[in-house]
């Protein structure tokens, strides 16, 4: 007799206990990153210069700040998902793999927080 609820089986949560969550998150973030990165690339190419006044005036716009925050958050999430699979594929030994995955997760959380903080600081700061 199986103790697994039928719903568990339908949801596909096997021994990894998470089913298709990783796969689905990777697809969602990649779809979101197509317009976000395209917008960012075009924005950088059309900025008249990279001096502080120009860049901070650009980041001061609400739409720019919003899209930059989304780019940082979705980008770090997607990066974390991708690098995680590479570590799972190539890092041998449970200990080394766990430590590498933990470090990767911390690093990405740090990057996401630092990026969002930086954008907010400029966007909410005084006049550019």
């Amino acid at each position, binding site marked *: 007799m199986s103790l697994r609820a039928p719903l568990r089986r339908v949801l596909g949560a096997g021994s990894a206990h998470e089913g298709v969550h990783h796969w689905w998150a990777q697809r969602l973030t*990649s*779809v979101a990153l*197509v317009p976000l990165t395209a917008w960012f690339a075009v924005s950088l190419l059309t900025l008249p210069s*990279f001096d502080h006044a120009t860049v901070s005036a650009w980041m001061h716009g609400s739409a720019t700040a919003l899209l930059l925050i989304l780019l*940082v958050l979705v980008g770090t999430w997607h*990066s974390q998902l991708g*690098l995680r699979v590479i570590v799972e594929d190539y890092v041998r030994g449970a200990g080394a793999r766990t430590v590498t995955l933990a470090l990767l997760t911390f690093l990405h959380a740090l990057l996401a927080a630092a990026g969002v903080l*930086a954008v907010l600081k*400029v966007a909410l700061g005084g006049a550019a």
Partner: protein
Amino acid sequence: MPQRPISPHLSVYRMTRYTLATSIFNRFTGVGLSCGLLLLVYWLMAVAGGPMAQARAQRLLGHPLMRIVYAALIVSFCYHLVAGIRHLVWDTGHGLERAQSQKSAWLVVAVSIALMLAVGWCVFAGAGRAP
């Protein structure tokens, strides 16, 4: 732990054919873009740090050798974007036949190289303005 071969295998397939090369290059460029993410956050923090901090960062970011990094990022971005779209098409269940995936592999290479040239031209042609 049993000594099983690690997936995906890099040495047991013919790289010259088609799909393995496009797949593993997608991984390499993904890692490259993760490094680009570091650079993006560094730049955002520099801007948030004020004019002095940004001027300091700009000396590093504007260094001639950084052009190699930007070129690598352009190659990575264009390839990963186009190859990623191919993966999304696959996820709908289309284009998975061998002949189709062979054809789309070449399409990915052709489109991404065209995109690389276009973006690279925009970035490096206006050289005085480039970061």
